[in-house]
């Protein structure tokens, strides 16, 4: 017992010391220092190709400021890896895979550097992304991330399976909820596919971004789930979205079990919730068509909102040569590099005038144009404290009411909204 007490005291002392050590002086030096740096890329094969080429170009021009790139898994564990590395003080200078939902947490940990602190930082971010940049500001008004690329969410449908079900493949009835449900019924009843659409029904906190959120963005005309610190989705729009999905699951048009594989490629579902990354993935596998997400009463395609599914770049405080990191960040988000990103990965850089800047690309690849157009009407996850926990609560309530029909939808939404209000106020 006594040794336990001693060890505890030692621990407290050690923590106190580490908290006291280190201070403003170091940060100032790091801010303007130049030199070799480390960056992390996600392990998406196309992004690696782009990243490695970009780093090679930089290294050739800056032999004194060499960049080393490492891969981290793009999956659900990347936020944990980054969070752990912030705590340990060995985070890289830039992470080209920073999820906007994790930024509030990293910021709270003191792990991110506000880009406004660099000369003309704010201007750079805002001139590149225009009005979209606003969504990425933190509650203190600063930019702790630069919006980098997005994958606006839309619906893919399998033309062959639609034909089999006797549905129009050039103007498929998918605009209103009623149409979407009727289409789904036809698909399943005709045996064209076991499911109409199969979003992952599992309970990870981010899964709601691919069923609930895109439709909510559309139905509410571009609202985030939390605005001005208050939940917005305990509303007719929110309830309509949850009830829509509830019917999809209740009638069996969407499976309650996660398919281990690609349900769209394996023809187990006739539709899928996708971003522009899907074009490369399904090329040659599925004859696809694309449509915006449905709204209750239907809307013109040019008016429908959706979710960004963005991944951004963060500059981390553990970085010793932050000036180099900042210069690299600007290089990697320059018009030229953004263009290469678009060409290599098909994902949309978050730039204003995306369609006009890269007009020749979209002429050569018209299939991406629909997504580029959707990119101007996308909504990001709200930048509020406890963001991950809020999404987890939303997912748990959604799962219980919409997917497994255990609790009434109205109650579930109220509960989720109430806890979101609590958490977003920063407790």
């Amino acid at each position: 017992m006594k040794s336990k007490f001693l060890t505890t005291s030692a621990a407290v002392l050690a923590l106190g010391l580490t908290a006291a050590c280190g201070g403003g002086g170091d940060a100032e030096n790091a801010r303007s220092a130049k030199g070799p740096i480390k960056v992390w890329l996600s392990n998406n094969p196309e992004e690696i190709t782009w990243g490695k080429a970009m780093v090679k170009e930089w290294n050739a021009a800056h032999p004194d400021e060499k960049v080393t790139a490492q891969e981290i898994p793009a999956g659900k564990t990347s936020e944990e890896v980054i969070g752990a590395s912030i705590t340990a003080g060995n985070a890289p200078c830039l992470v080209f895979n920073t999820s906007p939902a994790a930024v509030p947490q990293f910021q709270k940990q003191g792990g991110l550097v506000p880009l406004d602190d660099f000369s003309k930082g704010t201007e750079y971010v805002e001139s590149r992304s225009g009005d979209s940049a606003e969504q990425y500001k933190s509650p203190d008004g600063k930019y702790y991330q630069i919006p980098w690329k997005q994958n606006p969410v839309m619906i893919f449908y399998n033309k062959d399976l639609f034909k089999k079900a006797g549905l129009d493949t050039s103007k498929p009835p998918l605009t209103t909820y009623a149409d979407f449900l009727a289409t789904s019924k036809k698909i399943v009843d005709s045996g064209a596919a076991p499911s109409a659409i199969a979003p992952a029904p599992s309970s990870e906190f981010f899964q709601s971004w691919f069923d609930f959120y895109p439709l909510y963005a559309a139905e509410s005309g571009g609202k985030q789930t939390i605005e001005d610190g208050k939940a917005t989705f305990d509303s007719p729009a929110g309830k309509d979205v949850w009830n829509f999905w509830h019917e999809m699951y209740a009638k069996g048009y969407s499976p309650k079990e996660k398919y281990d594989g690609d349900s769209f490629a394996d023809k187990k579902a006739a539709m899928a919730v996708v971003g522009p990354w899907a074009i490369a993935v399904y090329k040659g596998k599925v004859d696809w068509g694309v449509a915006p997400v449905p709204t209750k009463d239907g809307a013109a395609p040019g008016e429908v909102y959706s979710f960004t599914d963005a991944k951004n770049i963060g500059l981390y405080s553990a970085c010793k040569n932050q000036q180099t990191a900042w210069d690299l960040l600007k290089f990697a988000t320059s018009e030229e590099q953004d263009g290469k990103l678009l060409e290599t990965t098909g994902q949309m850089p978050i730039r204003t005038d995306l369609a006009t800047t890269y007009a020749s690309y979209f002429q050569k690849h018209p299939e991406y144009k629909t997504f580029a157009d959707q990119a101007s009407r996308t909504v990001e996850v709200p930048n509020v404290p406890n963001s991950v926990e809020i999404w987890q609560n939303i997912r748990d309530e959604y799962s219980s009411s919409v997917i497994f029909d255990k609790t009434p939808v109205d109650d579930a939404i109220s509960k989720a909204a109430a806890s979101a209000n609590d958490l977003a106020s920063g407790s």
Partner: protein
Amino acid sequence: MSTPVTQRILGRHPLGLLFAAPYAVFLAMVFAWPLALAVWMSFHDYFFAAPGVPVDRPFVGLDNYVTVLGDPDVRRSFVNVGIFLLINVPLTVVLSLVLAAGLNAAVRARTFLRVSYYVPYVTASVALVAVWLFLFSSGGLVNEILGPLAPSPSWLVNAKAAMPVIALFVTWKQLGLFILLYLAALQAIPRDLYDAAAVDRATGLRAFWHVTVPGVRPATTLVVILATITGANLFTEPYLLTNGGGPDGASTSPVFVMYQKGIEQGNPDTAAAIGVVLVVAVLLISLVNRKLLERD
């Protein structure tokens, strides 16, 4: 070598201190300090910050514990583990003892049999989960065989079936170790006891019940305690088999919730509180088990 004074301070064999020192230091570093920190965290409003960042860490007394014990997700996870243990522990004890007895008696193909029963134990959960997912998915082999008897919704998304499937998986995987323990104990039972029982015309099942089972009582205690500890600390299987907690939280476990809250959501203080509660619960259950089983 040792004077009476040193003997009084350091014990009869101070050399033991030297031998045990590396291990003791290792334990202090890798176990005692982090554990102390975890306990300390559970009493404070704590989150991990970058080095050098000044952060407020107020003492909050039992707040975290109150939050945790009142959280329905946490309570659910403890209930789930309870269900798991109710299935897994008795099944493990019975199966491993029976199989060990069988293996002990078997002479032919002993190697093949032994390897078959141990192999799941030495294989990584990650690898085995992949096969089980394949087998138990709604289009998988198990449902194909069961045909109309297949549960709907299918196993791993069925709130009632998810935890039992995990219990089955873990039992299958761990059995090798417990068979080993029982084999050891069986070999220690003197032959004369069986001979004496045979004289009383107690053979076969009766001998098993009256000689074998009591004879391996210490092993049974060990098996029960080890199985309880493993079950209470369940993490990999809920994490991998049911993709994070299963249908509506039906297969979450306390360690899984700890991971969610501590690492995913950045609340290591509440996570630490859950951990402390779990450890205390396991200690209590182990003590009770021990008392019950050695009720001689």
